[in-house]
């Protein structure tokens, strides 16, 4: 079967750095022009980065392809090129169908215009003809559930209504190729379900979908195939389940273990040196991933070089958003806590129970503390690991809110004796 999208050796270079970056002033440009004959610098010698490098792949009609990768891997750049917002530096893309993109819902909404007016404006910005919008108008309104507010300026909408309306317009685009970026982050559970249904429908109609998401569960269940971008290159392109598993594996092993056998060169100072640090999964999942249910241990080995020091380790965990999640130390450690350490090698283990951390990548900073007050040595980001969500929860693909995700005990019981007034009990 012939492809509907053909990407060949696609590269995109961005210029970074301070001098020649985004906001040049006219004066700088003029000065640079004036200087040009006398100077060998041409102002373009600043650092550049390749957001995409020799990316090639093909998509067949009707395929639903997930695109995954870390932040900065080139996913958004790829989508921007596919939707013709920006041009590639080299290489090309051949499109054999109309592309509709949901890069961000609500693009071009004007707060002063009413819901009705915005449907037409937004629709035409997304590439629908007036006729198309007219014929799908009722559908869009019903999908967004904003019937009563059609003639209210959208600036008076609640954020939920706004997003629903915006998505509804976008979802009724009917291009042959649909490019979707993280729409699942919007809306409440109910609405999210509708959106997923809509994407399923789009695919059922035989149209092609490119779906970018950080949400591995959504990718796994919506896409058959996934392309993994890393550092601007295609790192894997295969069955979605396989690629996602590899991807998670890789992020897990990001920095799960560090070792310094030579005491001379080990990190530390003349008081204390680190020998090793590692994340250990006590009863791991089959593929070695850490899920939200997995208990894990953070193990550290270190040399105490000054006899009779009261040492303790202290750990700080940061999550993906940079939130300091917790700080923990061996306050209840029974043997050595509060006792002076002789010189020698020590090993401390911190056990973090399952059903405690929420899904996120974590960075661990290690502090070595003396007398529970003075930090002798600090090693930021000594370990990094990722806690993944499990696929078992169905229906909700959004991020579980909260910094932690403890599995508290709940009880519900019926208080036996209470009698409801007759007119309130709705049973039969």
């Amino acid at each position, binding site marked *: 079967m012939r492809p509907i999208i053909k990407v060949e050796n696609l590269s995109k270079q961005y210029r970074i750095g301070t001098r020649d970056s985004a906001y*040049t002033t006219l004066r700088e440009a003029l000065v640079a022009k004036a200087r040009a004959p006398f100077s060998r610098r041409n102002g373009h010698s600043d650092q550049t980065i390749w957001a995409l490098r020799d990316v090639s792949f093909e998509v067949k009609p009707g395929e639903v392809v997930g695109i995954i990768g870390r932040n900065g891997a080139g996913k958004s750049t790829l989508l921007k090129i596919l939707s013709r917002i920006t041009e590639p530096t080299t290489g090309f893309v*051949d499109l054999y169908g109309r592309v509709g*993109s949901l890069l961000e819902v609500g693009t071009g909404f004007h707060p002063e215009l009413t819901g009705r007016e915005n449907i*037409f404006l937004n629709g035409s910005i997304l590439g629908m003809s007036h006729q198309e919008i007219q014929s799908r108008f009722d559908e869009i309104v019903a999908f967004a559930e904003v019937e009563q507010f059609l003639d209210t300026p959208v600036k008076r909408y609640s954020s939920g209504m706004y997003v629903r309306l915006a998505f509804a317009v976008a979802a009724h685009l009917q291009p042959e190729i649909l490019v979707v970026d993280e729409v699942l982050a919007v809306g409440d559970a109910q609405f999210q379900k509708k959106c997923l249904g809509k994407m399923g429908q789009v695919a059922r109609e035989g149209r092609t979908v490119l779906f970018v998401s950080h949400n591995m569960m959504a990718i796994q269940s919506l896409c058959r195939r996934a392309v993994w971008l890393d550092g601007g290159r295609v790192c894997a392109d295969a069955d979605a389940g396989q690629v996602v598993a590899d991807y998670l594996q890789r992020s897990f092993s990001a920095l799960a273990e560090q070792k310094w056998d030579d005491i001379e060169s080990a990190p530390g100072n003349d008081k204390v040196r680190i020998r090793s640090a590692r994340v250990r999964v006590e009863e791991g999942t089959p593929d070695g991933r850490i899920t939200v249910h997995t208990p894990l241990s953070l193990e550290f080995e270190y040399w105490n070089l000054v006899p009779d020091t009261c040492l303790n380790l202290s750990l700080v965990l940061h999550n993906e958003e940079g939130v300091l999640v917790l700080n923990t130390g061996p306050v209840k450690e029974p043997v050595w806590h509060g006792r002076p350490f002789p010189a020698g090698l020590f090993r401390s283990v911190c056990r973090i129970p399952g059903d405690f951390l929420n899904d996120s990548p974590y960075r661990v900073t290690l502090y070595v503390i003396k007398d529970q007050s003075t930090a002798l040595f600090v090693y930021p980001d000594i370990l990094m690991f990722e806690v993944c969500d499990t696929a078992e929860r169905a*229906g909700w693909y959004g991020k579980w809110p909260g910094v932690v995700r403890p599995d508290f005990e709940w009880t519900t019981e019926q208080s036996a004796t209470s009698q409801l007034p007759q007119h309130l009990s709705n049973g039969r």
Partner: protein
Amino acid sequence: MPKLSSNVETSLENPIAQSTVTIKTTSDTQASNTIADTLPEQPLVRIAPGKSGALRVRDVWAYRELLYFLTWRDVKVRYKQTSLGAAWAILQPLLTMLIFTLLFGKLAGIQSGDIPYPLFSYAGLLIWTFFANAISNSGNSLVSSANLITKVYFPRLIIPAAAVIAGLVDLGIALIVLVPLMIYYRVSVGLGLVMIPLLVVICALLALGIGMWLSALNVKYRDIRYAIPFLIQLWMFASPVIYPTSLLPEKWRWILLLNPLTGIIVNFRIALFGGQSFEWKSLGVSAVVTIFILFYSAYSFRRMERHFADVV
């Protein structure tokens, strides 16, 4: 807790299982085959670097509905939440006219020939206000539409164009006020009126040419935003808006002619008030300069266009 409720609901209906299945079926059954059969031989679009030298007027034509909607939005939004509404379109030139009549007509005693000075300056200000608003709105249009440019593809030319066209509505409204003014001053109209649409079109094209060039520069050099008001102010005094060309000594008049607006304004007055034949020479200069500016800016706009999304 939205989540828990959703879990309960979905366990009943299980939409994921559904969608997974549907997707799997589609990729190997007829639906996709039919699409595949209808695939064009040649790609609809080839996205490649540096392919944007041509003017691609056809592209703009394909997006004409968007041009209409953006214009419509600009018009619609302009006077929202103002209590005077579209009256501002009239008040702007009218009040300026009153002030200039006092300052230049009465105090400075500028002679406007057979036409009463208020009428003379109002006519000039009409077309000038349109022109000035058009270049300032379109000059800033790309930057203020940054959210569109970075999210959706369409020919960027549409944005400054919509800003210019939206100004035509104001011009139309302000033209209406001319009627009572002309009745009051008992000025009769003649066949010259048929020239007005042509003059307005030339003026709009000139404004578009300058506006889109400024808007593209503005994306990269934000200095333009500050330069525009200054440019407009200078340009006004360099154009015969509030004074007649006869104010200048004969041997310097050719300088005014270099200004493409001169031909437009002068002939606009002749079209409205008659009294003399059209100055074809100055109109010709305006038309030629307009065409030149239009082509030059369209070309440089197209050249800069491809970096808009990266720079804005």
